[in-house]
Structure formats: C-alpha cells, structure tokens
C-alpha cells in the first residue's frame, strides 16, 4: 500500500491534463464549468481533438483503435476529462462500439467504426419505451421480417440528443411467442428512415436534450441486424455491463465540490464568507469526506479487480456516486440564497452576454443544474434496480 500513484501514472496524468488544457476550446470549457448547455459544435471540436490524439476510444480493443491502457489509466483519463471540464464521450462510443466489435458483421464494423472514431457518427439509444423502463424485457416495439427487411412499429423514449444522431441502436421484439428476453433483437436504424419521426421532451430543468421517436412501418435492412435474431437481450447486457471505470463520477463530483467551495467563499452571510458559517461549512466537509471515501473505494475496487471483468461493484459505485453528486448539487442550489429563484432559460443556454446579470452571474445555472441532477439516480438503471442487483449478489436469494 502506498499513498501516491506510481511516478509513471503521475506522468500519464500530467500528459492528459496538458492535452486537455491545450486542445479543449476555452468556450466549451467555460460552458461546462458554468453548467451551461452544450451545442453539437462543442462536442465535435473536442472529439476531433481526441481522435487526432488517438484517445477517442480508450475502451476498445487495441486492434480497433483502443489505447491499450490499464484500468487505472482509464480511470485517471476519465477523471481528468471530468476535472478539466471537457464534454463526456458519447453513448455510441462507449456502448454500441464494443458491441459491434464483439458481435457485428465485418461490413458493420467497416461501415461504422471508423466514422465513430472520427467523432462523425452519432448514435441514439433505443432501449426504453413508455411502458418499459426498469422492466426493459417487456418492450413492445415490434419488428416483422418482410423479404430483405424488418418492418418496425412502436416507439422509443428518453433518447439523449437524438436530434444529433445519424443512427440508432435499438432493441425490438422479433419473436412474440417466446420468453420475453429471448424474443428481443438488436438492430441499427438509420434516423432518416421513412416513417421514423422524433419529438423532443422538455425536462424540468428547461433542457431539450431528450427525445421520443415513433416508428411507423420503418423498414430496416436485414443487414442491420446485430449478431443473431433473438440475442438482443444478451448484447444489451454486455453493453450495459461494459467496463465503466469511472462510474462513480469522482472527477465530476470533485469539480462540482470545488465549484461549491469557490462559490461559498465568495458568497457572504452576516458579512462573513458563507464557507465560514459552521452549519454550511460542516455540511460541505461531510460531503468532502464521503467523496474521499468513495474515491478511495473506486480505486481500491479497480485495483482489486484488475484482470477480472466488471462486477457488481459498479452498482455500488453508481448508487453512492450519484447520490453524493446529487447532494452536492443540492448544496449548490442553496449557495446563492434567494438568487436561486430567478430563472431564464436563454441565460442557462447562452449566458448573460452583454446583459446585466440578475444577482451574481454564476447563479443563473444553479437551479437548472440542480433540477437536472435529479436524473442521475434514475438513468443507467435506477438506483433501486442497482440495489436489487447488489442485494442479489450479497444474499444470493
């Protein structure tokens, strides 16, 4: 046991940090730091830079453009990305990429993987449906084989940034007469297909990132089936269980905790910095201690599990990481006092520009960020589902 990472890892961390400082556009960094919304251009600029460096698909096998990093290097990389206020890597790269590499046809690999590495191909995720959330295996979108294509009817929901996407990876029911899990297939669907329409869903934070799509007799070529018909459920499990070294979101939590401390130092209460007010200060300190304990836990579990596949630990890290980040966002919603109340959605998106801010300029995004943070314990498998998974592994009942 040692207090520091090896010198080699610290050199690696410095290299990642320097790269982010040099290549991430200052405007994008500023938007992420202030909790404002990003445009597609923010992502594209950053993905191009990552691609040029060869760092856009660290999790992929080396022969497909992966970096060959150790688990610890990937952890450090993800932490630095988050600390450096860079945009996260898309669902396409982390989710469908590894599935295509493992189960896709040669043609699918040739067609999609290079474009994804260049940051040019965006994917929407087509899993959840209005009637199938945590109980995903009950999904009802149907695909019926008709000659050289499947005809798809139904709807998919909670698709992040589907308006940027060229393609969707979707779970659809191809066999209605077998066990629910065995009748599901995964297919790749062109977002411009006739009969496919998308509608945005406004969220409580004023955001417009979520979409629902409708399939009205959408024809999907058989060549777009992933792997075997009826095996979609196992591919989805593979995809969701794909190694997520940064699932606790330590870097994200640290950045928000630093933001909280910075704002608490500039806000005043009874003429003194808010951070010196014992009640507020002690709550921050309590969160900071939990974050330290969770950071050590992330690193320890990663080191203990080196060489093994991802385990149920990812459920544990997801539960605690999301709940801790939500507590930090909650305190961020309290740090500006009554200036949490004024709200202007255009300012959340674009900042105050030349206008005179209402209250401190950093107050404008705090309500939106807090509201948005309530989703993190719901998406990616609701925390209650994560608790079921973990309970099963502990109790074996």
């Amino acid at each position, binding site marked *: 046991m040692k207090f520091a990472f090896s010198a080699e890892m610290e050199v690696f961390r410095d290299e990642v940090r320097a790269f982010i400082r040099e290549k991430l556009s200052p405007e994008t960094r500023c938007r992420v730091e202030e909790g404002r919304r990003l445009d597609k251009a923010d992502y594209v600029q950053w993905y191009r830079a990552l691609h040029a460096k060869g760092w856009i698909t660290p999790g992929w096998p080396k022969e497909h453009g992966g970096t060959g990093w150790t688990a610890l290097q990937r952890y450090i990389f993800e932490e630095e990305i988050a600390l450096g206020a860079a945009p996260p890597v898309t669902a396409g790269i982390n989710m469908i990429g590894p599935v295509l590499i493992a189960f896709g046809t040669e043609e699918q690999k040739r067609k999609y993987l290079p474009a994804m590495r260049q940051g040019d191909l965006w994917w929407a995720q087509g899993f959840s449906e209005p009637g199938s959330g945590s109980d995903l295996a009950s999904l009802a979108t149907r695909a019926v084989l008709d000659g050289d294509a499947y005809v798809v009817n139904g709807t998919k929901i909670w698709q992040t940034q589907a308006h940027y996407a060229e393609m969707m990876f979707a779970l659809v029911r191809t066999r209605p007469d077998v066990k629910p899990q065995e009748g599901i297939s995964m297919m790749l669907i062109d977002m411009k297909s006739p009969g496919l329409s998308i509608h945005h869903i406004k969220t409580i934070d004023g955001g417009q990132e979520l979409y629902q799509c409708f399939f009205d007799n959408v024809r999907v070529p058989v060549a777009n089936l992933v792997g075997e018909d009826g095996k979609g459920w196992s591919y989805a499990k593979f995809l969701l269980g794909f190694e997520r070294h940064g699932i606790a979101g330590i870097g994200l939590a640290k950045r928000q905790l630093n933001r909280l401390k910075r704002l608490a130092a500039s806000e005043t209460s009874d003429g003194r910095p808010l951070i010196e007010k014992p009640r507020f*200060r002690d709550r921050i300190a309590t969160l900071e201690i939990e974050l330290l304990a969770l950071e050590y836990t992330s690193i320890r579990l990663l080191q203990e599990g080196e060489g093994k596949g991802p385990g149920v630990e990812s459920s544990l890290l997801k539960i605690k990481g999301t709940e801790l980040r939500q507590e930090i966002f909650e305190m961020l919603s309290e740090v500006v006092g009554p200036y949490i109340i004024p709200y202007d959605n255009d300012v959340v998106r674009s900042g105050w520009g030349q206008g005179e801010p209402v209250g401190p300029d950093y107050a404008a995004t705090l309500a939106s960020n807090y509201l948005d943070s309530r989703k993190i314990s719901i998406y990616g498998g609701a925390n209650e589902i994560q608790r079921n998974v973990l309970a099963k592994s502990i109790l074996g*009942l």
Partner: protein
Amino acid sequence: MDFILNEEQAILKGSVARFSADLRAAMDKKAVTAADRWGRYADMGLLGLPFDEDFGGFGGGGVETMIVAEEMGRHLLTDPYIPVVAVAGRLLADHCSEEQKAYLLPRVADGSLIVVPAFGEPKSRYSLSRVATTAVPSKDGFVLDGRKAVVLSGAEADLLLVTARLSGEAGDEDGIGVFLVSGDLPGVTRRPVLTVDGREAAEIVLDGVRVDKTATLGNLGQGGAIARRAEEFGVAALAGEAVGAMSAVFDMTVEYLQTRRQFGVPIGKFQALQHRVVDMRVALELARSIAAGAAIAADLDNAQERRRIISAAKVQVCRSGRYIGQQAIQLHGAMGMTDEYGAGRYFKRLLVLSSLYGDADHHLERFVSASQYGEGGALVA
C-alpha cells in the same frame, strides 16, 4: 494510491487472522487468562510492531497496525492492543532517549511491561491540550497533581504516559510534558471501571506524585504535539478495528437474512430489507477504503495531509459504524436486542470506537482546519 497489500503484509494478514480466530475460540471456552492472552501477542511478535528489530520489533507502520487491528475487531478481542502498541508504543519509539529505549522497548515487546496513554481528563473531552494536571519541578524531578479520565486498561498497566502542564493555562498548546508514571507510585490512585464493551478502564487520581527527572519523554513542553501525533496512529488503527467489527456484524446480518424465515420465506426475500443490506454494504466499503487510506497516511511526514485524511477516516468510520450497527440490530429483530447474540457485542464495540480518541464532530472540526476552509477553501486535490 495503491491499496494492494505487499507480500509481507498479505502474510501478516493471514497469520493474524488465524491468531485472532484461535484466541477468540480460546476466550469463548474461557481457557485463557489476560496474562496468557498478552503472552500470545508477544509470542507472535505483535507487541513490538512499531519498534526496530534491535528492540524486539519489526518496524511496522500504519498499514501493519491496521492489519492487526482489523482482525482484532473482527474477532472482538478485548486486549488493549491499540492503546499499548499503536499509541504508547508509537510514542515510545519516536520519543524515548537511547537509555529509555534500551530499557522500555524490549520489555513492551516481550509483554512484561504494559504501558498505556493517560491523556484525557474529566474536563478535557477530546482535547489533548486542555490539560489541567500539573507538573511542578522539584529537587530531583517533578511533582504531579491532577486527574486522568477513561484510561483504557489503566488499572492493570505497569506504566502510564501522563500529560501534565508545566506552564500556561489549560488549553494552551505549549507547556505540556509527557511523563512516565509507574502505576504503583505513592499518590497514584486508580479506580477500575468496566467499559460498555466489557473491557476495563480506570479513573486515575495523581496526588503529589513524585517522578524522577529521567521520567520525561521527548521535548519537555511539546507534550501536546507528541500526544497528538501518537493519538493519530491510534485513530488510524481503530479505524481498522472498526472496519473489522463492521465487516463481521455485516456478515452475521447477511447470514441471518438468509436463514431466518417468516411468512414462509427467508426474510432476505423482502425488498425493504434487501435495500437496507445494500446500504450497509456501501457504508462498509466506504469505511474500509478510507480506513486503509488513513493507515497509509499515518506514516506521512506532511502533517496537514496526514491529519486531514486520518480525521476524515474517523468521521466516516463513526458514521458507517453507527449505521451498520444500528441496522444490524434492527434486521435481527428482537434477537438483536439479546445479550447472548453477537450483534449487540459488535454494536457496543463500535460505540466505544466511535468515542475513543475523538468522536465524529471532533474530527470533522479537525478535518476542516486541516483543509483550510477558512482561507478561501482549499480545493479538492
């Protein structure tokens, strides 16, 4: 951070685990006296852990101490290992003169001399500088007067490490000395008292106790800092002990949920209980990680970083321990309230550990001061 035990540490862990399980079994059969038990620690070489080989030790640090303490917690051993080895032993190793070392360290290591810290006082709560006990210079030494509170194993110890004030007011950082006081000196009155977890402590009165001038340790006047540094080792060690206790009572609870049947099924089938077990596991993992962090940090020279992490660990261990202990009792139902069933014994050990060497509030305050919140709020590393 590197949380993987090296080969020697892994071997130590294995042998201490066997040692502790055997000792527990012997205690359950009531087949060992306190003196026998202490002899076993000595035979294992555990009492000289912080000392150099020349003095009968093996030069162990924070991680080795944690490894031993964790197994002791898991098996609820009752001996004063942390006060004697982690706190007093560490203090002696760091502050004895060569003459003192030659006499004291081999005797502590072979178990013939039991030395315990006696820092706390009836009014000092968890402060190590609020020392009202006085040390007045005399012709050939010092005269000590005052009271020492809740001294673990204070009645059976051969020697007490007593903090006493040479100058200044109670609360002043400077002006405190550390004195070696033999328990049988005239003027020392020790009132034994049982602890809530079934161990022994003493309330001690010092009434005109004359000690020789060679009975001082380290820089005279710097006793507050000397005691604090030694106590940091103690906090790191007891975080390990608490993790051992939490881990055992967690396993016990899981087994109970798997076997106890109500409504025709094992009660672990009920989601309300399942989610509680998950939250206990989360609390346990957080405590385990930060206790390991504290064990590593205990040997750091950077005092601020060391204090920050050790105090963070104590806060987290208090919170996790309380949650796990309380839920363990709840999930055992009325069985959890019975004295014969083990859950309660772990719960009581965790209660003692949450108070010993400073509770969560005390260490939260220390964490804040080591993190320099007041000065612009140092950012997270």
